[in-house]
Every structure is written in C-alpha cells, then in structure tokens.
C-alpha cells in the first residue's frame, strides 16, 4: 500500500511575482505512513503551517507534487473528499466557532458531507465521549463555554468527521498545563487505540516529543532532521542552534554529559533518566570520586 501522504520536492512561494515574494517551502520530501504519531517542529516562520496546508489542498505547491492516499492534490477536482480524509485543526480553533448550539457546531462538518441526522447524532455522542466533553449541554450556546472547552468543541467537530489523519496546528497554545496534558493524552489514545494517524505542529519540543514516534524538524523551509525522538535528541546542539526549545530533561542530561558524565542524554522519560543517573553514580564508586568531575 502506498504512503498516506507523499510529498516530492515541494516548493511553495508566497506573494509570487511581487517584491514581497518569498519561498516558504524549498524542496520538501516527505512520506507519512498510516498510524504514525508525528510532531512537526520548527521556529516561527520555518514553514510549518505552510507545509500542513498542503496536506488537504488548501495550498497547492508551486513546484513538485503532493499525493494524499494516492491522489495528486494539484490534479484532482475532488478536494472535498481529501479534506474529509485529512482533518485539520488550525491554530486557536475556538475562533472558528459560529453555531447557536454546541450540537450544531459539532454537526457542521458532518452536514457538509451529507450524513443523515441519525448518524450525526451517533457520531457526536461518540466523539464527545472520546474527548471527555460529554458532560456539556449540547443544546446550549458554545460561546458561553470556557476557552479550553471551546477548543475541545472545535477539535471534536473535526474528529467527528472521522478523518484518516488528524493534523493539529499548535493545539496546546494558551491552554493551562493540565489542559495540555489531558488533550495530549486523549490524542495519544486515539493514535494508540484507533490507530489514527496524528500530526501535531509545534514550536516547542518538550511537550509533544514524549508521545510522538517521529519528529520532523523544519528550518527556513527545509526539513533538516527527520527521525524518532531518540535520534533527533542525539543532536541537541543543532536544535539549540535553530533556537528550538529542548526538553529540560534532555538539556540537563546533556549538560551533565558535557561536563564528563558518561551517560546518554537522548532520554525523554523521567523514570529512565533517574535510572541512568543512578547507574552512572554507582559506577563512580564512593562519594569522593564525584569531585573529580570538572565543574566547567
């Protein structure tokens, strides 16, 4: 079976033929397989949002090709069915809410694709359960909800369409720590239990990297790193170089390593890190030996 999303030498230019023209993507090659949990990371202006808008044909490449589930987005006349396969949650999705009731908001996408009212009701029931918002009164106005709840409604409205790949652009921005953790955990369980392909865009490595099984690092319109988190974090210097936030744990372990500690630093799990540190500490023998570690 072919890849779910395939990009071959994709170039994209904003404001073409004007003095303000600039290339946002420069020769991107990418293959995304079913069931992956991918995190696309890059500093502001690196082309992350431009890249994901190619996945559902909102933008079309100036050069190169984007193939979604076997269909070339530049050639097809049926982008609507691609947009159903690729569910896309934009930054601050709560600002797209418009309906009078929560139910209508959740049903919007489904109605656009002509589902029957019975099926819509069924799907809304299941999606609100999955995202833990089944306690919300569906006949009330979504504008009365808190920011976090509104975001969940917006995310649920995409998920209700049962996409094959779920793309989220900075879904954690402006959420409190607990909200972030919960949302990430719910998305992770959708990936694990229902093998939904997930792509999360972020400018911060710390949060998403623990769940993602693949990290793609973008810088100035090019993919500069692509691999499992453990591989990516082997090159900490490069990440810091392009001003990306590295998880504090990795930074700590890397600093220990630089000062002569014989430990791996590409570890994302607290438990594992503790074990590695204890093991290294024991290998040093008694306490006095610790002092031999150079301090700077």
């Amino acid at each position: 079976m072919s890849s779910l999303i395939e990009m071959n030498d994709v170039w994209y230019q904003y404001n073409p033929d004007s003095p303000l023209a600039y290339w946002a993507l420069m020769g991107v090659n990418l293959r995304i397989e079913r069931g992956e949990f991918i995190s696309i990371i890059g500093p502001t202006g690196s082309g992350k949002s431009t890249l994901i808008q190619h996945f559902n044909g909102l933008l079309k490449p100036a050069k190169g090709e984007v193939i979604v589930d076997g269909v070339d987005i530049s050639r097809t006349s049926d982008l609507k069915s691609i947009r159903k396969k690729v569910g896309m949650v934009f930054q601050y999705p709560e600002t797209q809410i418009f309906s009078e009731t929560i139910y209508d908001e959740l049903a919007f996408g489904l109605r656009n694709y002509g589902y029957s009212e019975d099926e819509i009701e069924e799907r809304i029931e299941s999606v609100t359960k999955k995202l833990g918002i089944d306690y919300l009164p569906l006949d009330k106005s979504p504008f009365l909800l808190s920011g976090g709840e509104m975001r969940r409604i917006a995310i649920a409205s995409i998920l209700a369409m049962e996409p094959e790949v779920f793309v989220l652009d900075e879904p954690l921005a402006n959420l409190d720590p607990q909200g972030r953790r919960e949302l990430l955990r719910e998305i992770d369980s959708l990936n694990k239990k229902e093998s939904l392909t997930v792509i999360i865009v972020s400018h911060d490595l710390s949060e998403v990297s623990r769940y993602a099984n693949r990290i793609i690092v973008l810088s100035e319109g090019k993919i500069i790193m692509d691999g499992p988190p453990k591989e990516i974090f082997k090159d900490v210097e490069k990440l810091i170089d392009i001003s990306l936030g590295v998880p504090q744990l990795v930074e700590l372990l890397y600093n220990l390593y630089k000062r002569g500690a014989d430990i791996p630093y590409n570890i994302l799990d607290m438990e594992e890190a503790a074990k590695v540190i204890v093991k290294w500490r024991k290998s040093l023998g008694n306490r006095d030996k610790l002092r031999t570690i150079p301090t700077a």
Partner: protein
Amino acid sequence: MAIEISFGQYLPLDSFIHRLDPRIKLIITLINIITIFIIKDFIGYISLACFLLFLIVSSKVPPLYIFRGLKPLIFFILLTFFLHLFTTQGTVIFQWWILKGTAEGLRNGLLMVVRFMLLISFSTLLTLTCSPLELTDAMESLMSPLKRIGFPAHEMAMMMSIALRFIPVLVEETNRIIKAQVARGADIESGSIINRAKNLIPILVPLFVNTFKRADDLALAMEVRCYRGGEGRTRMKEYVLSSLDFLILSISIVIAIISILI
C-alpha cells in the same frame, strides 16, 4: 479562494521619494490634482506627465503597479471618452448608425482620458510610496489648524489609523476562518446565490465575534496606557522637513505654474 485586498498597496522600497516627508507628498499630490483640473490644453499635461514619470522612476516603483491602479477604472475611462466623443456639438468627422463623432468631441474625450489617467497615477503613486500610517499622520498634521474651530482632527486621524491598522489583520483572520471552515467541508464557491449567502454565515459570525473581542481588548489596552485623546500628546517620530522636501515642493509648484500657463 483566499481574498487579496491590495488596499494601501504600500511598497516598502528604498528611494528618496519614500523618504520624503509624508506631508510634503500629500501636498504635492493635492497640487497636482488641482493643476490637472485647471489645465485646459494638452501641452500642460505633457509637462505634468513628465513630472509624473520623473517621480515614478525615482521612486523605483515598478510601472506595472501604476497600471494595476488604472486597470479597475478602464471601463469608466472608456465610457467617459465615448460619451464626450458622441455628445459634443461640432464638426462631424465620422458617423456610425445614429452616433456622430465630432472633432471637438474627440479632443474633449482624449483630454478626459489623459486627465483621469494622470489623476489616478498620481494618487496611486502616493499610496505606493506612503504607508497608510504615514498618510494619516500627514492628514492629522495638515488638519490640525482646524482644531481651533472645533474640528476633531486628532480623533479623526486616530480612527482612520486604527481602521487602517486592522484591515490586514481582518483580511488575515478572514482567510484563516475561510480555510478552517473549508477544511470542515464548507463550500463557499459554488451553489445558488441564496446558498452562497448562507455559506457566509460560518465565516461572518466568527469574524464579528473576534472583531468585537479585539475592539474591547484594544480599548482596554489604550486606557491602561492612559490614552486621553490628542491633548498634549507627543510622538516618538517627529516629522522634520528637510531641504530635499522643500526642493521637491518648489519643483512641484514651479511645474504646476508652468503647466497652467503654457
């Protein structure tokens, strides 16, 4: 699908025209516009056109942008031309069906075409080389003598600059909301007029909601910074007239006088 509004089509280039004081640029444009309406003969327009050409070349603006400013008005310009051609009384030079083209009509028509093209070109050049904020600053400064008779010059300028400031924000936001709704399967491009109007609701409602929120935030932010209107307000960047400003202004006045007199 995405809307592009080239309002305040400012091109941030580096030329001495761009660096001129916006007040001077506004005055020069006004002088030129008045001159265009006073002139009655082609010779006057030639000297004015030469001045325009000089300004365009020295502003480094690609001439294509000036043409783009003319394009939407081509129909209007042609209509005026033909109206003049066929309705002016005088010696008939050709006749087609019931329409009589006269020599005087041809002359008047061409005069109108040149007049319109110069008019639009001068004002397009102004908006291409002056950012919207510079323009409102210039207007406030030029209108400030009217404050004495109770004209709210500062408030007008503040309203204009806020409105201008938020046009790109709203355009961007509209595009973002359109994309978000299209990603949910909304169809905004096809269907009957009623359907298309209906399909605007998912775009307009969030746009209004967000705009009201933003207006609230802005009002709060201004109040927090003790904004109390224009009284006693100073600016970070004061406009200071340089000798170059006076030079260009004098040249413009001389050209206007020459154009009118010859």
